[in-house]
């Protein structure tokens, strides 16, 4: 029995609001005060995005109308299709240095975005049901296994940002499914360790941070010595990383090393990324509290603001709508994320619950990383901001998730 009473209208309102704001921004980007764009260009992106909104609504309806158990049943199939698509990309790469799209007729879709749906479903299916203590390790390994394949495929594109989003999305999901904070720490610590090693060996030439980190590891291991296996694996994992990493680093090509270093130390690439961020900061900073007014932004008109309709669209928002507008949009996102988390508490099905947390994590990390990047707090990684950035795949995936949340809201009682 469907109860319209339970339909979460707030989710629909917030997402609709964000889609409209996104369209307005894309219109604005190509309509600067003194227009330098030809008629074709100024409407081309807006019209295309409008078309994508239509597809996105279809995706939303699919997410809403399909019984959740179908998704659970098809999880592995969806996963396999996405992995095949990601693999295909690597083979059709040709001469281009990076290729993230695959052509479907006249449209170009980005399989790495759809991979996020596939991963959430797969995680949800693997992690639902009761765990016996022995199960936990097995399921953890499976979850990491299925995440590692797309992680490596996307890393090869290369799209480090998306690969990292795959990974960080998993952490809240694991936490939700009963992993303790310290276990998350156990998973996270070798990664932090390897980043610290590279950072101190190659950039700062200062091994203090890594030393401090290792001391912390040993202290934690000592405090939790009653759980001997856990302590030992914590130390072993970190020491292992310390031993293997330099060897692995040596096998990388110079340009690969450079890419990783640029990610860790964006200052080293002032010609490219640093320049973008500085221009973005000028746009946002010059917006002030109340902004310059819709369509009145000056920075967007110039060649200075790169990727202004995709990854850096938030800086156009910051410039034209100011602090007030930016905060309001962040608050709308916060409402959406909190509704997704509330839905995770409410639904009875463990699969749906897990996926809802994953959806919350998806929106949270995409928004946080993107805004942190445009304001110069995080390295430039090419993560779009959901609903606002130009680009069909991201919009379709976001709307599908909204459809799924709405689906859960009306059928929360289903197991």
């Amino acid at each position, binding site marked *: 029995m469907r109860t319209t009473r339970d339909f979460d209208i707030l989710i629909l309102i917030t997402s609709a609001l964000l889609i409209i704001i996104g369209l307005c921004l894309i219109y604005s980007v190509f309509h600067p005060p003194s227009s330098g764009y030809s008629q074709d260009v100024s409407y081309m992106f807006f019209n295309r995005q409008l078309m994508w909104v239509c597809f996105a609504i279809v995706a939303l309806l699919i997410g809403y109308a399909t019984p959740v158990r179908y998704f659970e049943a098809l999880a592995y199939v969806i996963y396999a299709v996405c992995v095949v698509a990601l693999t295909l990309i690597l083979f059709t790469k040709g001469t281009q240095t990076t290729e993230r799209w695959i052509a479907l007729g006249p449209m170009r879709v980005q399989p790495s975005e759809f991979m996020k749906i596939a991963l959430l479903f797969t995680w949800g299916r693997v992690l639902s049901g009761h765990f016996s203590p022995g199960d936990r390790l097995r399921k953890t390994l499976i979850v990491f296994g299925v995440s590692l394949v797309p992680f490596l495929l996307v890393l090869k594109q290369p799209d480090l940002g998306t690969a990292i989003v795959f990974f960080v999305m998993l952490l809240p999901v694991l936490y939700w499914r*009963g992993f303790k904070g310290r276990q998350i720490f156990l998973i996270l610590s070798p990664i932090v360790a390897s980043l610290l090693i590279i950072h101190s060996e190659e950039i700062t030439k200062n091994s203090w941070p890594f030393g401090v980190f290792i001391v912390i590891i040993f202290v934690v291991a000592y405090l939790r010595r009653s759980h001997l296996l856990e302590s030992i694996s914590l130390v072993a994992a970190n020491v292992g990383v310390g031993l293997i990493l330099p060897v692995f680093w040596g096998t990388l090509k110079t340009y690969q090393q450079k890419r990783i270093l640029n990610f860790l130390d964006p200052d080293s690439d002032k010609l490219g990324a640093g320049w973008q961020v500085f221009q973005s900061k000028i746009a946002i*900073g010059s917006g*002030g509290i109340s902004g310059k007014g819709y369509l009145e932004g000056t920075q967007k008109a110039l060649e200075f603001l790169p990727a202004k309709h995709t990854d850096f669209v938030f800086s156009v928002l910051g410039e034209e709508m100011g602090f007030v507008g930016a905060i309001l949009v962040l608050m709308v996102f916060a409402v959406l994320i909190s509704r997704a988390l509330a839905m995770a508490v409410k639904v009875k099905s*463990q699969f749906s619950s897990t996926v809802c947390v994953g959806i*919350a994590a998806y929106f949270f990390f995409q928004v946080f990383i993107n805004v942190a990047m445009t304001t110069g707090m995080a390295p430039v990684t090419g993560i779009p901001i959901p609903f606002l950035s130009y680009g069909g795949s991201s919009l379709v995936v976001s709307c599908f998730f909204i459809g799924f949340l709405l689906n859960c809201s009306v059928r929360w009682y289903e197991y």
Partner: protein
Amino acid sequence: MGKRDPRDEHLGRVRYRWLITLVIVFFSLLAIRLFGLQYIQHDDYSQYAEENKLQRERIVSPRGLIKDRNGVVMVDNVPRFDVVLPWRSETDVRRTIKKLNVYLALDTAHIYTRFESWKKKNQGIPFPIVQNADKLVISFVKENYDIFPKLRVETNARRRYRQGASAAHLLGYVGEVSDRFLARSANYGYFPGDLVGKSGIESVCERFLRGEDGQRAVAVNASGRVLGELKELLKPPVHGKDVTLTIDARLQGHLETLISPLGAGAAVVMDVDDGSLIAVVSVPQFDPNSFAVGIAQDEWDRLNQAKEKPLFNRFLQATYPPGSTLKIVSVFTLLTNRLVSPQEAIVYCTGAHRFGNRIFKCWKAWGHGYMNLYGGLVQSCDSYFYTAAEIMDVDDLASASREFGLGSRTGLDLPNEIEGLVPDREYYNRRYGKGKWTQGLVLNNIIGQGEFLVSVLQMCRAAAAVANGGYLVQPHVIEHVAGEPEGVHTSKKMKALEGYTLSYLRRAMEGVVNDEDGTGRASRLPGVKGAGKTGTSQNPHGEDHAWFIGYAPARDPEIALAILVENAGHGGAVAAPIAREFYIEYFSPDDSSSVLSQSRGSVHQARPE
């Protein structure tokens, strides 16, 4: 589908609260950051936005220097001036070029093609309209600020080859980067119009010599005038690494002046112990300075089409018949295969040798008389070797030649080395058919005529092998690159060049230079006992090539050398005296002039080989 139990539901609420808290905390961080940018730093950023004429400029990093083994700078950089145009739109650039062309005669077609490739990659980076502008253009741009307010004069670096044409083939030259190279190295920060090493050391060490470009951001006013620089965005360029060569620039220059007057030729001088090259000469030469800022088409054509082929690297890429210098290998073959008894005079040289129905001539038409192995080498008696060759297997000589490093690359750290040719049974079978060639070919081979082809570098290394006690060293010209690990150079012990064979060869090569009837007498220098072997290789294209290979001092060898002068006649008369004058410079640089003048008289009296 799992069912949730009540306990789980409680835990779910705890986790929900934690996650919500994290979201709020992280979003608050963003809010604080936005507040900082949009309220606290608002004025600063507004100012940037209003001026909004920030421009990125590339600071081209200077190329590394190239030095010789004593630290003498062979290649450095001097300033050059470019006229650059900061640009926003394409029409802007075209209009300016057109307008500028009214005043200065420009090669507009070339500028447009450069701009086409420039605009694809360098959005917002000023375009150099005139590269390496002369004084006239510079003063024009500076004086006509009102007509061309946007044009600026930028200082860049030009490559300077301090010794002019000296060692040109080794050092190579730089030129404007090609489209193909750009496509291949898209990720390494090359831009159209950049200079890149095209040959020689400049090309081999490109990745070291080229530094990392810097960048600065400058604020400009509405008319494009630079107002100031943004320190925050300054990225200083990283200087290219210096390359130190094993070459001695002074000796290199000296050896070049000895060979240049004789036309075309090549010479290599090597440290016998480690294979480092002290001088590598290829004449005629060219001046790499003329390439440094883009060579004019007619100059390029002239260099390319000249009959003497000045761009051709003769010490590395040219092969010649070794002539009698190969007799060192021949003696080695005879001794190791025990084909002759060294003391026995197996022939009475009459100036000609009959084999089958063919007559093989000795170079000395009136004959050497009775000859044993020692005399055969010292006096270079062909008849002796013809006689010995009658019982020699063609493959024995071939494998001995390979043992001396002939017929294969030496492993020098320069590209495009030539292998040369060592003919063996398989080669002849392929060329003439099995059984369709005779032992007569071996008679030609043993005196270094026939099909043998060697490079000057290979022969120098062969001489060094005798000098250093039988080690085939790996020749190299790069001593080290600043901040890079030292290169590793291998050296291979030759199997049979030791003991009696080695000492016999050395004694005979000393005899060539020091005996009264030795053919290499002209390389003799009082005070320094040398050793060597002359050669006169016939070639179908003209006069004989003159060869001399050798080493000095004979007792405790330091250097080995190989000298070849094209179409110059007898090795003993032409090439050996060059060795002598090089020794003078090498062993007594201070009083060279006196020794030189007093010995010059006797040099050219040498009997031909």
